[in-house]
């Protein structure tokens, strides 16, 4: 165990904490800009091909999407509880909430896997296997290309997040967060960001033209 309270390049633990928090926020804004490219593409094609987008959206399962949204929001809640527990130094509570967050994340990905397999089965995955009766074949492929690109990138970020949760769980078990719980806080920020992306993806992909 290190006797240092902060890394050598910093003058005080407060400075280190301030720097690492700012660093994570700076990283999160790079992630906002990463997703922005796909949102721009979405805006373009939704403007140009509204019927195809409504058609594409109608084949997405609103119930599964809603459940996933609720699952992810719940995981954000359990994550916040984990960070709070870490601030209080309560090892058991940290681990419990990390596990809950992880499990909810797995549920989310499981449901996504089910959705993806439905799309594959229905020949709605863009590419040579794409087949759809009715109008807007090409435009519909654009919708699904964006659907897979956006939810796929999101899922990729979730998988990384879950890896980080496992890492935290192991370190928590070793009592690593008794004095300094910054790592839990930082992973929490990342996890909430992943939730934020989904908060926007859900209505934009699943809830178009439902009233029709």
């Amino acid at each position, binding site marked *: 165990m290190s006797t240092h309270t902060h890394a*050598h*390049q*910093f*003058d005080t633990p407060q*400075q280190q904490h*301030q*720097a*690492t928090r*700012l*660093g994570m926020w*700076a*990283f999160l*804004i*790079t*992630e906002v*800009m*990463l*997703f*922005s*490219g*796909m949102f*721009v*593409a979405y805006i*373009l*094609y939704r403007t*140009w*091909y509204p019927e195809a987008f409504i058609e594409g959206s109608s084949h997405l399962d609103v119930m599964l999407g809603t459940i996933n949204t609720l699952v992810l929001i719940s995981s954000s809640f359990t994550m916040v509880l984990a960070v709070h527990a870490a601030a209080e130094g309560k090892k058991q509570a940290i681990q419990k909430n990390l596990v809950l967050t992880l499990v909810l994340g797995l549920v989310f990905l499981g449901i996504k896997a089910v959705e993806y397999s439905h799309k594959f089965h229905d020949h709605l995955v*863009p*590419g*040579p296997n794409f087949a759809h009766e009715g109008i807007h074949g*090409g*435009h519909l*492929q*654009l919708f699904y*290309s*964006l659907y*897979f*690109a956006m939810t796929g*990138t999101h899922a990729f970020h979730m998988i990384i997040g879950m890896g980080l949760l496992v890492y935290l769980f192991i370190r928590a078990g070793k009592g690593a967060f008794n004095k300094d719980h910054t790592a839990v806080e930082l992973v929490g920020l990342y996890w909430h960001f992943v939730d934020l992306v989904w908060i926007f993806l859900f209505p934009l992909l699943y809830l178009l033209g439902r009233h029709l």
Partner: protein
Amino acid sequence: MTRLQRKHYINNGYGALSWFLTLDHKRIALLYLITATLFFALGGAFAIAIRLELLTPAGDMVQSETYNKMFTMHGIIMVFFFLIPAIPAVLGNFLLPIMIGARDMAFPKLNLASWYIYMLGGLFTFVAMALGGVDTGWTFYTPYSSTYANSQVIITALGVFITGFSSILTGLNFLVTIHTMRAPGMSWFRLPLFVWAHYAASLIMVLGTPVVSITIILVALERLFHLGIFDPALGGDPILFQHLFWFYSHPAVYIMILPAMGVMSELIATFSRKRIFGYSFVASSSLAIAVLGFLVWGHHMFVSGQSMYAGLVFSILSFLVAIPSAIKVFNWLATLFRGSISLQTPMIYAFGFIGLFTIGGLTGLFLACLAVDVHVHDTYFIVAHFHYIMVGGVIMAYLGGIHYWWPKITGRMYPEWWGKFSAVVIFIGFNLTFLPQFVVGYLGMPRRYHFYPEEFQILNVLSTAGASILGIGYMIPLFYLVWSLRYGKVAGPNPWNAKGLEWTIPSPPPTENFDGTPEVTEEAYNYGTNHA
């Protein structure tokens, strides 16, 4: 006489691992210095090949497809692997913590990771080259790159994607370091302008690079999995790609020039022995360039099919973005006025920058004008414009900075006469290469073609002659700088008698930079006598 065994960052630990696993920002800067130089040589080799082909009007040296690969690799290597990282990752990494009074960057491990990521991206690009290269142009326009190209698009795209993260992490490190690790007394308006410039460039790295990252991934996904976002056959819009690409790639040129301008402020102040005139204007103009630079990307797309009205908006904004750059040039000139000027090698490079950047920048105004751009788009006029800024501007500043801080980095002086000589050779070679290109471009010679009408040959021959001189000019410093490592005059802490925290510590600096944490009590460039 016994050799002094003072510990500094170079002799503090020997062996390859102590360098490849270093967490010292100064050693990381040297890793970047060596590898960036190698990439520059590779990109330069492609440039030589291009200029050789263009000696004759017929496309007789290589096939068209091969020529396409040559200019593509030249562009990709020079832009992503040299111009964007060079000044920030070499000079920025070395100097930033010292200039603000810190012992290292905020995130030293991330700093090292940035270098490894840069190398990994380079490896991908190298592999792509070995497997036949890519021929889409460094701009990867769709649907050629996404559907029709038969070259190594995916591997190259992944290489650029990976290197983008190096840039993002470097920018992030710089931003956090500058925000949180300034020494007591080092307020924002006491920072050297080099730091302001790197701060602004880091903002762009962090906000812009992720957009090109996702764009490249989308192209790769389209090629691999037919996720056809750019495919016109499906109703996709090729102009969408251009928007996504240029949203980053225009600000990218400000990532290149801002650090160069930062170097310039340091050189002009030291070699006029005078405070930079209008310090706060120069500092604010860096931020203004960073922000405005994000609003003008459509000027690369005037003839692409984007809306004419959007073109008008981009045109006006492009005129506006020239203003902060001009503010800098005027302030440097005002600094020179009544300054005590000494024409050492770095100052020669600085003067070269002022002239060449001004020409490059003014021709940029020509291009901002819609009507002119319609005429010269995709001609050598454009090629000349951006080379004046990137080579005449960025590379001159880079070389000026390398020479200026060489004694600090290595503890040795370079041979002054050779320094001056190469600077002049480079200046002459550069102008001979690129001035004819303005003319031949305006006359209508298109870019990215390896054959051209016979009447353009004389200008092309002049350009190639210039390129050979330029190439020689670049090689000379390589020799004398390496020579100086062993035989150069030993340098003291402040050979230039300059102001700035980096000149208060030994040359080469100790690993921890400072004994404890310095306290800053004076303004930047506190040379004394002079007026606002």
